[in-house]
């Protein structure tokens, strides 16, 4: 906006001549968002982030964290947190990115986490989680990278076996077992071969002795 005199001496006001001069400063921020470094040229009030990763925090994840219903990004990875994943995490319904990897969290993954229908990035890897990985909503979209390093987790996507399935039950398990049969056959083959060779060698040795005895007897009978 600016005012200028026109040729007849009247003041005319020029509006909209340019939106804003370079003189308007725009705040921006750079954060780790969904695993990569992202610069936001505008900081909208809807962008909400808690990143406490890579410290030495201990203890449980408080249940009250579920009250953060507007939080978009939660990163508590690379700490020493223990205890179960609170079911209340399912209350953070705006959450787009949840990273709890590299802690000492235990117990099962609560079914309530499937209520996080905006969740795009999930990382629960390298903890002590056990049991069945929930299989609905957004959880169908996460691959094994989200869960690896938890020896006690079962079911897709970490293993093709359904939870509780023993490798010796028929059906799906039998297909998985085939390589073991193959190894057994080879083992038996070698065992049989070894037995055969040993038997043949024994016979040969004996045959030699029998031969020598036969020759000696024949010579004796001639004389």
């Amino acid at each position: 906006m600016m005012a200028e005199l026109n040729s007849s001496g009247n003041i005319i006001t020029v509006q909209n001549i340019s939106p804003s001069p370079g003189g308007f400063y725009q705040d921006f921020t750079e954060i780790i968002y969904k695993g990569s470094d992202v610069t936001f040229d505008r900081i909208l009030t809807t962008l909400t982030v808690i990143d406490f990763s890579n410290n030495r925090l201990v203890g449980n994840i408080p249940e009250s964290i579920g009250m953060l219903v507007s939080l978009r990004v939660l990163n508590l990875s690379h700490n020493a947190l223990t205890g179960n994943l609170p079911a209340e995490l399912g209350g953070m319904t705006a959450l787009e990115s949840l990273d709890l990897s590299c802690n000492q969290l235990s117990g099962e993954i609560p079914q309530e986490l499937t209520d996080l229908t905006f969740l795009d990035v999930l990382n629960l890897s390298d903890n002590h989680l056990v049991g069945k990985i929930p299989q609905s909503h957004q959880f169908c979209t996460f691959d094994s990278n989200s869960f690896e390093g938890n020896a006690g987790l079962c079911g897709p996507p970490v293993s093709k076996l359904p939870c509780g399935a023993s490798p010796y039950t028929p059906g799906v398990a039998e297909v998985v077992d085939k390589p073991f049969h193959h190894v057994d056959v080879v083992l038996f083959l070698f065992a049989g071969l070894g037995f055969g060779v040993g038997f043949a060698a024994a016979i040969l040795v004996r045959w030699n002795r029998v031969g020598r005895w036969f020759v000696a007897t024949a010579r004796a009978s001639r004389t």
Partner: protein
Amino acid sequence: MLISSNNLIGSVDLAHFRILSYLTVLDLSYNELHVMSSDNNDPADTSYLAGLNVLGLVSCNITQFPRFLRHVNRISHLDLSCNKISGDIPNWTWEMTWSVRGSYLNLSHNMFTGMQLNSDVVPINTRMEVLDLSFNRLSGTIPMPSSGTVLEYFNNMFSSLLPNWTSYLCQTTYFSISKNSINGHVSPSICNDAIMLDVLDLSYNYFSGLIPPCFMDLSILNLRENHFEGTLPSSIRTGCGLQTIDLHGNKIEGKLPRGLSNCLSLEVLDLGGNRIADTFPSWLRGLPKLSVMVLRSNQLYGTIGDIVGDTKFEECFPSLQIIDLASNNFSGNLRPQWFKR
């Protein structure tokens, strides 16, 4: 004639406007026009619209600096931003008769490579309200007008400043040279020279040395990604007006100055990627507007947010929306009270 921000399409030759000899204001910005100004290198041919003093041709697909401007009697507002003009800014741009009441020159978002200046001082003797040269390919020493209020040199390839550059900032409120390749120290003389300064953006350069104490008197301080060292100035006055402090990616060490709690307008505090060794600044909890606090990648230690005394948790950090404390040495528990209303 103000016809900006429409959906006008087609080509416009400004030479066709020559019969409008009394035209003083022309704005064709933000249409879908291809604007040109035909001339045959004949001075008689280029002297039209001589009465013009406000010209806005933003985003008009211009490829050549309009030569008729050379013969304009008195210009106060020239906006050629967001076009495709390459080569030098012609030297007569600086010799035009600029308005004594303050002028506006915006040549940003083009492909200018030079300025045809004899010295590194912009020879416009009247006050520049705005000089915006951002988003070009200008190199060498940053040219300074003798008196400018808003000076924007963002995103060029400038490599140095005049030795006495701070002495040109006595009328300046906004100074940005972000994203260039400038090294050296900031002389403490800036505290005596730049008395009007409100916004300072030196981010993404190679500045080193100490942070002058008067930087804490600004509204916006952006020194992001430089090599500034030493501690943060502790002289933060009671009426501190800082809204943004971005010192991310420098070599700042020592403790956080407790005077930051005086900065009641503070909205963005980014001190990430430095060498600050201190405890969690729970003493900032009363700042009513603080919405972004990034302290990642420092040497902070102790527990997070232990509130002593009778302060209620719900009164702490009332506007905080981004808190990034990653990669420090914080210990202790996550407190259930942090997350409760």
